[in-house]
């Protein structure tokens, strides 16, 4: 539970057990497609969190943080999941300032995860075709 997770760097950059699960369920193809989807949709969600915070559309910001949390969790991108989940919680409580202050961290952790997933994709040969 989140109470035990005091710092984002306590989380692994990539939780290999989740990636192994994806492989177990659908082989390299499923895992590759999931990584592709994170590359395609993750950035849109990060941008939507930013846009929602900037325009005062807090429902958009919260829902986008929630979606990003969910996708990151499925891929084992544990730090993105952690920060997105924290932003979602803060927005739920109405603490927009604290949520906004975490946006830079979210962006940073998202880029960090893309780097790690991209390296993994290259290293495993990547059966997926980049769009």
């Amino acid at each position, binding site marked *: 539970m989140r109470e035990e997770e005091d710092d984002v760097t306590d989380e692994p950059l990539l939780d290999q057990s989740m990636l192994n699960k994806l492989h177990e369920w659908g082989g390299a193809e499923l895992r590759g497609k999931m990584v592709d*989807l994170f590359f395609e949709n993750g950035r849109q969600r990060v941008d939507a969190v930013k846009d929602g915070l900037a325009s005062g559309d807090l429902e958009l910001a919260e829902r986008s943080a929630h979606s990003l949390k*969910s996708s990151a969790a*499925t891929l084992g991108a544990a730090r993105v999941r952690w920060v997105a989940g924290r932003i979602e919680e803060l927005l739920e409580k109405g603490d927009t300032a604290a949520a906004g202050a975490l946006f830079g961290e979210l962006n940073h952790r998202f880029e960090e995860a893309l780097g790690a997933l991209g390296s993994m994709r290259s290293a495993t040969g990547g059966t997926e075709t980049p769009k």
Partner: protein
Amino acid sequence: MKPRIAVVEDNPDNRLLVQAILDDLYEITEYESGTAALTGLAESVPDLVLLDISLPEMDGTEVLRRIRSDARLAALPVIALTAHAMSGDREKYLGLGFSDYLTKPIVDDAVLLETIARRLSEG
């Protein structure tokens, strides 16, 4: 014939994952939104619905309310699927009329498969 499951989920990655886990055993129909699901369910009634809570425009609890108030759909097993896991949520969602409640990310496919099988056998 395989039992039919409607998956209502806006995240394409979660749809893909659920499809990968369930595809061998069930015939899956996917809906990206609550409104699309209600239209689809009215045309073709499945054996079970997996319903995400956090959906744009019409959230999962409203979709459930409409399913439960439609005589043709009211008795359908509907399983809530949510990444919004808070303590007390299970009771809350069961109280709203969901048949069962599962959290995302799916880390144990056996839990998903067993829950679906149990709810289908009760139907």
